[in-house]
Structures are given as C-alpha cells and as structure tokens.
C-alpha cells in the first residue's frame, strides 16, 4: 500500500500512509481512538473509496479490482454486526451465500468453524442470546467462512474480559498458523505486543514507526530508569552528559532515563552523580521497556483514552519528538 490519503470533507483522516504486510504474518496497527485505524481498515475492505494512493491486497489492485479484493478477504468489524434475530448457523449460512459458496461447501465449513470457535452447542441459538465473547467468536468464524487469504480485524477484543481476550488471541494464532495473513488494529498495547509479528504505531493519520515488538523496545535502550528528585531539571542536564544514557524524558513528577547498558549496574553510578551535584533522590524504579513505553516514546504521550490532562499532553509531545 502506497501513499494512502483519505479526507472526510476537509478533515484529513489518513495522511500519506505506506506499508507492506508480508504473506502469513500478523500485522498490527496500534494507535489511540481517532488515529485513523478504522478509516484505513474501511478503505482496505472497500467500504470507503480510495481517494488518493494505491493499494494492492492479495495481488489485486483495490481501485481496479475491488470485486477480487472482496473475494479474497475476511472482515471482523469493530462493532458487533450480527443480526440479533438470526441463529448462529443462519449467520454463517447467510455469509456463505453472499459469497456464492456452494451448499455442501457451506455446510462443511460451518461445521468446521463452529468446532474451531467452540460454538457447536449454540448452532440454533439466536445471536441475541449469546454472550459478548461468543458473539465475537462467531464474528471471527464468519470472517473465516470463505477461507480468506487476508483477515482484517478491527479491535478484535474490545470490551471483552481478560480470559475471553486470551482465548480470542489463541484463535487468532491458530488461524494464522493455518496460513491466513492477519491485519488487525488495536489500542491495547498488550494485544499488539503479544499477538503480532510486526507493529505499526499510528497517530494522527500517520505511521510513526514500524517494526517487530522487540525491535521497537530496543530503540528505547536496554533499561528504563525512573527517578524523582529534588531538582528534575538540573538532574536531566547532568545525566544527558553520560555516555551510557541514551535520552531523558520528563514526566509530570519525575524523569525517565533510557540507558544503553544494564541498568542494574548503572543505577548506583547515576545516584552518585546526582548526589555529588547536590540533588536529592526521593524515588527510583528500574524496568525493561514495555510496549507502553515505546508508544509514549514515539507519540509523545500516553493513549488518549487512558486519560492524561491536556496541558501535559502538549508539553510532552514537544519533548518527545
């Protein structure tokens, strides 16, 4: 996909995005709500027209052969899109018929998929009587009904409890192992981290960075040290001079120091340095970089809906970029 842009009227929702998903991989778009993830998925699944740029999916040009693209993809939408008044079997049956699957193929596939997502017992139950997790599993089964080459999943575990999420992740891995390429969007760090082969962090309609989870984490250094001191400003200046310090980022109360070496051994050195500079340390923490840290590092702020006040968001962004 190349130079994709999309406008809602005057508003640019997607800004010059280019990326390639390799065959057989799980690729994630990680970003806050409103970053443009769903817009990209809607374009890729032909629900929105390509305004600018070019896209190729499963070897077909999205602009020229949208029908062929539709034949080769499966979709799990963000919101539930199940008819409450149809049974589990009917939902799958309807989907198979939409894609002109022959009758025997439909029946075989329905049996197979209900087994995969463990809904055999719910075959003739109206979807209104299913739990949230079951509905999600049914939607995944539906997305797989036509044996798509690429499965698109928009926020596959949104609003589900932790156990159900882990179960859904297992299904996704299973499906992927059987050869389906998976493109998913999420705003859950752990989901992107644990599930995907590669991640693109997307924000304000742009891809900020792309890479494997460990690659992204490594760009932040070996360890992260969090310090609260009596004078964060001077401390920051002092530490930036150290060779083993890769960067310093200011938080509302303390500092995050990215270090190139094993933090366990560097920490005493840092403490000595600050003490000799007349700075008192009130709190210390040492940890490995997580996906959250990667996200904050690249977007300059925490996920919007985890709630951070506006003022600090702005100043942090200025520092982070």
């Amino acid at each position: 996909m190349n130079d994709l842009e999309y406008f809602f009227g005057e508003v640019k929702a997607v800004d010059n995005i280019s990326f390639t998903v390799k065959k057989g991989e799980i690729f994630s778009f990680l970003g806050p709500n409103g970053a443009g993830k769903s817009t990209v998925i809607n374009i890729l699944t032909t629900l929105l027209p390509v305004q600018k740029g070019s896209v190729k999916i499963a070897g077909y040009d999205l602009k020229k052969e949208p029908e062929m693209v539709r034949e080769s993809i499966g979709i799990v939408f963000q919101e539930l899109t199940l008819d409450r008044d149809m049974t589990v079997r009917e939902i799958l049956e309807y989907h198979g018929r939409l894609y002109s699957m022959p009758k025997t193929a439909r029946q075989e596939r329905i049996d197979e998929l209900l087994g995969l997502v463990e809904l055999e017992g719910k075959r003739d139950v109206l979807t209104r009587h299913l739990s949230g997790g079951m509905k999600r599993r049914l939607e995944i089964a539906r997305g797989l009904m036509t044996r798509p080459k690429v499965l698109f999943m928009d926020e596959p575990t949104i609003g589900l409890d932790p156990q159900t999420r882990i179960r859904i992740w297992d299904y996704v891995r299973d499906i992927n192992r059987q050869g389906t390429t998976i493109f998913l969007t999420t705003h859950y760090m752990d989901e992107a981290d644990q599930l995907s082969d590669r991640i693109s962090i997307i924000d304000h309609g742009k891809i900020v960075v792309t890479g494997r989870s460990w690659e992204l984490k490594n760009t932040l250094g070996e360890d992260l040290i969090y310090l609260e001191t009596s004078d964060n400003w001077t401390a920051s200046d002092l530490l930036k001079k150290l060779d083993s310090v890769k960067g310093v980022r200011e938080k509302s109360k303390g500092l995050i120091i990215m270090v190139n070496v094993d933090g366990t051994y560097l920490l005493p050195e840092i403490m000595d340095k600050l003490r000799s500079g007349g700075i008192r340390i009130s709190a210390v923490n040492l940890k490995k970089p997580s996906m959250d840290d990667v996200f904050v590092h690249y977007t300059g702020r925490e996920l919007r809906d985890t709630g951070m006040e506006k003022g600090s968001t702005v100043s942090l962004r200025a520092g982070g970029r």
Partner: protein
Amino acid sequence: MHTGFLTIYWRDMLRFIRFRTLLFASLVQPALWLAFFGIAMSNNFERLTATMPAAPGVRTVGYLTFIGAGVIAMTTLFTSLFAGTVLLFDKNWGLMRETLSSPLPRIHIIIGIGLSAMTKSFIQAGVIMGFGLLLGVQFFEGYTPAQTFFSLLGIMLFIGTFSLGFLFLSAAIAITMESPEGMQAVITLLTMPFFFTSNALYPVNSFPPVLRALSTVNPLTHLVSGIRYFAIGSDFSSIGLRYTYTREEVLVSFLALLAFAGIMFLIARWRFTKVTVT
C-alpha cells in the same frame, strides 16, 4: 445469472416469519380494516344510495365489495412503503457493512428486498380476499374457475408491480435517511396524499379538477382500478355510480404502474451507488 438477490430475499423472509406477532399483526390488521371500516361505511352508503335508481342491465355490488379492492391496495401501499425500513436498521446497526463489503452487487440488495416486499403483499392480499369473501365481498362472482384463475393472475401482476415501485421508493428513502423516526415521518407524510387522492375508498368522479388530476397520476388509483377490473368486472355499479373499465384503460393503468416502478428503481439504484456505510 447471479442469484445473490435470493440470499437477501431469504434473510428478509426468515425474519418476517420469525416474528410471530409482527406476522400476525400484518395479516390481521387489513382484515380488521375491512371488517370495521368496511361494514360501518357499507351500512351508511347503502342507506344513502337506497333511493337512487340502479343502472338498468348492470350488476350492482355493495360498498364492501367496492372497498375490498381499496383495502387490498392500501395494505400493499403501506407494506411496501414500510418494507424499506429494514435497510435503515441494517445500516444503523452496522449489519449492512457485511453485505456491502461482500462481492454481492448492490443492485441485488434492492431486488432481494423488493421480492420479499412483493411476497408479503401477495400473502396479505390473499388473506384479505379470503376474509373478504367470508364477510360477503362479491369478488369473482359468476366466474368460471379458469376466469377466476386468470383474474387472480392479473391481480397479482398489478400488486407485484405496484409493491415493487413503492418498495424501491422506500429503499431509496431508507438508504438516504439517518434516523428511523425521520423515515417514519416521511413515510406517513407520503401515504396521506397517495391514499386520499385515490379511488380506494370513494369514487373520484366528483373530485374538484386538481384532486382529479392528482388521482389520475396516482399509482394507487391504477392499482385499485386493476383489481376492480379483475375481481368485479368491466362494468358494474356501486354506491349509485356506474363504473366501466375497458381493456385499453386497464392496460394503460398497468403500463403506468410499470413506468412508476421503473423510475423508482432507477432512483433507488442511484441512491445505493451513493451510499457509504462504515
């Protein structure tokens, strides 16, 4: 031939049969119209027109028979106009995304829903006719079985074309509108003029010129004329007036309905190509 529209048809009929209360109401309601309104008005009209001399040599039918055709037509109008609402709900609840992102050509959605609206209209018309005959509606009187069969066929042709036309209109509105309340309001607004400028409940002969002109272009008038021609005959009198329908007039009525359905189809197709559902 791509038979995708059958999938849409299958789903819509599935839902129609599944909701027992809705199914029951949609079948009983028109019958009640005939029973209450028909019988009440019938007695009034019989009294008012009792003194008028019957046209000699012409069969006279009661008011109940007269509006029997009107009630069938009215029910078809309401059913078809409301049948598009399912598209609005599908759109608002995100159900349509699945269909729109599938390889199914969009035109099949319109055709599928159209066919199911037509089927529903046939079922309803059947129920009204059956119930009407019980109440004393004099349809198909003196017809041979073959004549009755062909008359039924003619009625179905008229009802089918008419219901498709209004379903297409309804689909075009549904896909354009955002809220069910808005759609409800528009449809209620639409049914009024169609209903009251037609010959469904009363003769249009004594309308003022403007209303008469309206009634002539009103598809409902053409449907009612068609049903009366096939069910009662080409020459009869009721509530003191004589009605004659020539074959040519009935053919023109049918062509008018065809033209209406054609135009509405084009409008619906145009609205469907415009729509983006995300």
